[in-house]
Structure formats: structure tokens, C-alpha cells
């Protein structure tokens, strides 16, 4: 057995944002095992203070280039709930389409370009373009559809333009919707090939039971609104998100930690799968079976396969939604009106690609933001990543350091961390016990 191990990964690659992994094992004992977050803080809550509510979704989409539509949607929902805005069925439908576009874009980017290189023995997607050109071309084809879907309804994916408080500022021609519908149908072959590819990869076997938290809806696998569900049994309205996230400054840490029923919980595709797999479309259920995923799944590496299942589900959902748009046509609706009142407060919740996201605003009677809070998925996952790392390291001690380093990086990457969403979890110092 290896007695002393030192792993120091400075700036983990193929993740969004800057983080370091530090493992220090002496005489077989873990002295240090931590994911250090070294991203620069950005202070979005302070930036929002005093801004007109109309700017909030455009400012907060800039929290993250990958989840721009997700942040915009959570921001709009917080504003709309504070200002008692009613949404039309069309607005809800079109927002779902944008949301699916972003989720597909993000998941495809993650599984193909950030995760797959680990299994195919290359450092990145760039040598993959030479060694596996068909795989890369397929990923780019699928990603392009996802981006075009966002662009058709929101103007662009990073950063959405046409989504506004109460509705949309612009609508696509139906001919554009028809074109997307045809392309979605043609994408199904690529979706099948994706399930085949990721079903053939040797996922690491590692399990650690934990709590999973996601937004739940009564009868569908949704991503916008709903209630906060947990595999430990509680279901709470989104207004009570603070009871779930419990952001605290721990004495040994400078980061805001979150914990609900246990020391830590996991959010993201695997959490959603564990909580509401019964509502997946049939093709996605079949994909889960093919990928060897069954609930409850306690292997964090399989978060990536849960993302593949969601790719399948969302493409089917996009087809259903586009059919609905084509059937009903598009009305050039004006955004729903706002009601301004002193101290109006609202919480918006969305399950973005990396997990559950909360925005909360207090808006003054003259429409200026007085208070803001954003709790992002990666911040909620950090405590769980740390505990997974500490459970994984002892199982790897006999392996060479390069192999340990790779497995630790793969674990961190499986969570698809989005560190540049740099609210609330900086300079994390996990002190090994």
C-alpha cells in the first residue's frame, strides 16, 4: 500500500471556472483532501442593489455563460412572483423550449467535450476531432440544434435577449418553428448514437449514499417552477428555499455551506433522475435501462449518464412542444402587466443543467431592486463533492498517483461544476478530519 501520496491539480481543466484539487495522504491517513475554489468573486447581489427590476435578468444571465437562459429564467420568475405577473400558456411553453435548448447545449457540451475525452484517452475534444471525427461532428451537430433552438425564441443562448418580465419581446415566424421541428426529428438518430456511445463506456464503480434535492412537479419531468423535493422525504414550496440551502459560514471554512437533512446533498441530473424518473418519456426510460441507470443511484460518476437520459427526454419534449406551437400558432402577446408595491418579494426556482437554482428579490414600489440573493447549484454540490472525494481516496491508495489524479478530476468533472457562477462558494477550505 502506498504510504504517502500528494496530488495537486492546479486549475482543474474542462470545467467552467477555476478550482484546484489537493490531496495529501501521509502514512495511509488523509491529511488533506479538498477542492479549492480560486475563482474571483463577482458580488452579483451587490451589483443588483438599486438597479431597475427590468435589468435583473440581463445582469444575472451574465453570472454564467453556460446557464445564461437558466439564470435569466430564475430571475424572471423571482421578479414575476414579486410583482404578481401572470404568464400566458404560450409564454410558459416558449420558455420551456428555450430552457430545453440550453439544457441540451450544456449536457452535450459536458458529456461529449468535457467527459468523453477521459474515456477515449485524449486530453480534450481537439485531438478527438482527428481520432473520432464522427463523434465530434455529431456532438457539434446536436449542439448547433440546441443553440439554434434558443436563438429562435430568445435571440441567442449566451445571453438571451427576447425573454422579458411577463413574456417575450419578439417571436419567430412559424416557418422557423417548422424548420426546427424537422431538424428535431432528424436529430433522433444522433440521440440514439449518443446513448450507444455512452452505454459502452466503463464508468467507475463507486457509491456513497447521500441526499438528492431537485424541483418536483406532480405529473411531469419539469425544470421551471414546482416544489423542492428531497429523497429524504420532505417537499417544500420554493419560497422556503432557505430551509433547504441553510447557507452558513462554518467556523473552519470561509465558504457558504449548504445542508438540508444531512451534512450535504447533491443537485443536478442524477438528483432529478432519482426523484422523478417515473415522469421521463418512454424513450428516455429505455435509454436509462440501456445505460444501466436505475433509481436510486448513488454513484456520482453516473451523473453524466443521467445527463444523457435527460438529452433523450428533452429532445422528445422539444418535439411535443414544437408540435403544440405549430398547432396553436404564435400570438404576438404583450408581456403581462406588473403590480408595484412596497417591499414586494419573490423567489424564482429552476432546475438548470447543474441542479436547482434560486433567485430571490425584494423590489421597491418604484421598481428598484432593494435586496437580492442567488443560490447556485455548484455551491450546493461542493459539500457533497468534498465528502465523495474523502470516501473515494481510500479506495485508490494502491493506484499510481497519475491514476488517482485522473479519478479525482473525473469525479469533480462528473458534477459538471460551474465555478464561474461565482456566487457564494469561494476559497473553500475543506479540512480533513
Amino acid at each position, binding site marked *: 500500500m502506498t504510504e504517502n501520496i500528494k496530488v495537486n491539480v492546479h486549475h482543474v481543466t474542462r470545467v*467552467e471556472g477555476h478550482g484546484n484539487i489537493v490531496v495529501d495522504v501521509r502514512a495511509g491517513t488523509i491529511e488533506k483532501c479538498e477542492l479549492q475554489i480560486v475563482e*474571483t468573486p463577482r458580488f452579483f447581489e451587490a451589483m443588483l442593489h*438599486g438597479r431597475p427590476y427590468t435589468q435583473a435578468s440581463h445582469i444575472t444571465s451574465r*453570472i454564467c455563460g453556460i446557464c445564461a437562459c437558466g439564470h435569466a429564467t430564475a430571475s424572471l420568475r423571482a421578479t414575476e412572483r414579486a410583482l404578481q405577473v401572470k404568464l400566458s400558456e404560450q409564454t410558459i411553453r416558449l420558455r420551456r423550449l428555450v430552457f430545453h435548448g440550453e439544457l441540451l447545449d450544456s449536457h452535450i*457540451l459536458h458529456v461529449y467535450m*468535457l467527459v468523453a475525452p477521459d474515456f477515449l484517452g485524449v486530453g480534450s475534444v481537439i485531438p478527438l476531432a482527428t481520432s473520432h471525427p464522427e463523434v465530434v461532428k455529431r456532438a457539434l451537430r446536436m449542439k*448547433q440544434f440546441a443553440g439554434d433552438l434558443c436563438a429562435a425564441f430568445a435571440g441567442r443562448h449566451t445571453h438571451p435577449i427576447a425573454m422579458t418580465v411577463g413574456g417575450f419581446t419578439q417571436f419567430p415566424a412559424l416557418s422557423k418553428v417548422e424548420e426546427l421541428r424537422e431538424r428535431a426529428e432528424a436529430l433522433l438518430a444522433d440521440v440514439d448514437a449518443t446513448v450507444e456511445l455512452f452505454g459502452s463506456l466503463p464508468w467507475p464503480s463507486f457509491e456513497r449514499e447521500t441526499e438528492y434535492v431537485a424541483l418536483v412537479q406532480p405529473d411531469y419531468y419539469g425544470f421551471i417552477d414546482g416544489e423542492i423535493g428531497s429523497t429524504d422525504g420532505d417537499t417544500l414550496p420554493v419560497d422556503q428555499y432557505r430551509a433547504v440551502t441553510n447557507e452558513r459560514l462554518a467556523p473552519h471554512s*470561509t465558504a*457558504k455551506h449548504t445542508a438540508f437533512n444531512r451534512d450535504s446533498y447533491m443537485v443536478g441530473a442524477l438528483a432529478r433522475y432519482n426523484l422523478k424518473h417515473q415522469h421521463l418519456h418512454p424513450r428516455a426510460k429505455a435509454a436509462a435501462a440501456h445505460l444501466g441507470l436505475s433509481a436510486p443511484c448513488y454513484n456520482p460518476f453516473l451523473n453524466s449518464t443521467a445527463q444523457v437520459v435527460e438529452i433523450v427526454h428533452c429532445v422528445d419534449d422539444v418535439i411535443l412542444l414544437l408540435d403544440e406551437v405549430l398547432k396553436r400558432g404564435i400570438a404576438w402577446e404583450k408581456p403581462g402587466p406588473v403590480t408595484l408595491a412596497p417591499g414586494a418579494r419573490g423567489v424564482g426556482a429552476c432546475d438548470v443543467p447543474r441542479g436547482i437554482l434560486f433567485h430571490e428579490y425584494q423590489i421597491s414600489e418604484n421598481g428598484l431592486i432593494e435586496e437580492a440573493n442567488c443560490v447556485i447549484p455548484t455551491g450546493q454540490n461542493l459539500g457533497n463533492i468534498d465528502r465523495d472525494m474523502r470516501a473515494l481516496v481510500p479506495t485508490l491508495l494502491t493506484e499510481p498517483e497519475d491514476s488517482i489524479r485522473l479519478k479525482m478530476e473525473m469525479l469533480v468533472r462528473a458534477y459538471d461544476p460551474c465555478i464561474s457562477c461565482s456566487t457564494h462558494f469561494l476559497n473553500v477550505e475543506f479540512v480533513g478530519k
Partner: protein
Amino acid sequence: MATKPKIAFFDFTSCEGCQLTVVDLLQTHLGLLDLVEIVQFREAMSEKGEDFQIAFIEGSCSRKSDEARLQTIREQAVVVVALGACAHLGGINALKNYWPIENVQTYVYGKHGKDAYESYPARPISAVIKVDAVIPGCPIDRHEFLRIVQLLLQGRKPRLPDYPLCVECKFKENACLNTLGKPCLGPITRAGCGAICPSFGDGCEGCRGWAPEANFAYMREILRGHGLSDADIDARFTMFNHYQLQQMGEPAPVTTPLGPNKTAPLPTSAFAAPKED
């Protein structure tokens, strides 16, 4: 065959959306990889080379400890390109420059915020190192990125449009949002994005920086005509350009939107600051 120019991507305080836009560009222009060799792109690849000639830098400089990294990049690169509004203007990050930095740190992170989260007022990278070219926008326009890369590979100096956004908006045959009662900063903003926001029904927010000889006073009159308060107009002027307006001094309209007292500190936040054990 001559060796391909080596390029590298770096990120500072940003959302990394501009680098993602470059990844998106590869969906339709994979041939770009035949022209250049990417030696560093942390967000997308593990390989890492330090022998780059062109450095694309995304993000603002918002802490002292990042200055040395910027200097190192500058020493290696023949050409440094500021990628996107954060690097070009300071961008959204400079919104926090309204208040003293200690105030901002404790507002979001409580009483330990000052020690735990190193930060100073956000600046464009040109405030720290010499910048040879700029690709504006939040995010960048992928076609403009391609055009500028092509020019750089030909050894030519890229130039940005020297006219306001309205010119492109007219070419698109858009109805003028300002005449429709929707506030739009197109008249004072540098063109180059194809007027994408007005084309989707939303007024320009100025993410590409000001057009040469921008007439702020008349822009303010137009916006007052929409019934906007001066505080609301300031909020629009400063969204991406707070740092630029600070540097310009007069006629830069920089006030704290919540009140007339420009130096009023942020109140204690009941929302964002964490509970303390």
C-alpha cells in the same frame, strides 16, 4: 507547410460566455483548427502550452493577484486581444464599483468577507497591460471573432466599426425602438453586432462600448422623452460602461440608483449575507 500560429485563451473575472461562443463557432467553422493551433484553453482542454503568439483574454481584472498573471501573458504574447465586454470595458463586473470594496465584500459575504474574498474595483485589462486588439460585446459576436482572427493571421490590424448601431439597425430594416417608445442605446453605441438586441425587440444596452463622438446629452433627452427618470437613465448608461463613464469624468452620469447620495454605503443585507455560527 509553415507552422500554424499558436493561440491561447485565458479567463479572468467573467462568465466564460465569450469562450463558449468560440466553441459554438466551431460548430460551423471546424476548419478554423486547420489555420491555428490552440495551445491553451482551460475550459475546453487539458493540454497546456506556453509558447503562444496570440492571447485572447476574457474577463476583467478585479483583484491585485491577477495582475502578475496578466503581465506574464503579455510578456509571452505577440498580440493580446481583449475578448468581450468584461476585458474590453470592465463590463458588468464594474457595477460593483459604485461602492467601497469593503462594503461590497461584507454585503455579500458577511463580516469575514473582506478577509476571505480578495477583490478591488473591476477594470478592463487595458488598465493593466497593453492591448493590441479588441473584440467587443457581451458576449462577443462569433462572426466578428472570425473576421478579426482572419485579419490577425494576415498580419493586419483589425479595425472596429466607427459608426453607431443605428446604421446596422437601418440595414436590417428594423423599426426604430426609440420611436416606438422602447428605450434603446443604439444611437451612442458602437456598431458591429448586427443590432442583434433591437432585432429581437429589446433596446441596445451598450455592451460594445460607446461610438466615437457619442452624444450623451441628446441620448438622455431621448430617454427622458420615454418618461424615464434620471436614475433609470443612469442605470442604463452604466450597465456595461460604468468604468468607462468613471474614466471619462464629465459628462459621465454615475449616481447610486437608489438615492441622490452618491457615496451612500450599501445597507446591511438580510438576503445575501450568510448566517454566522
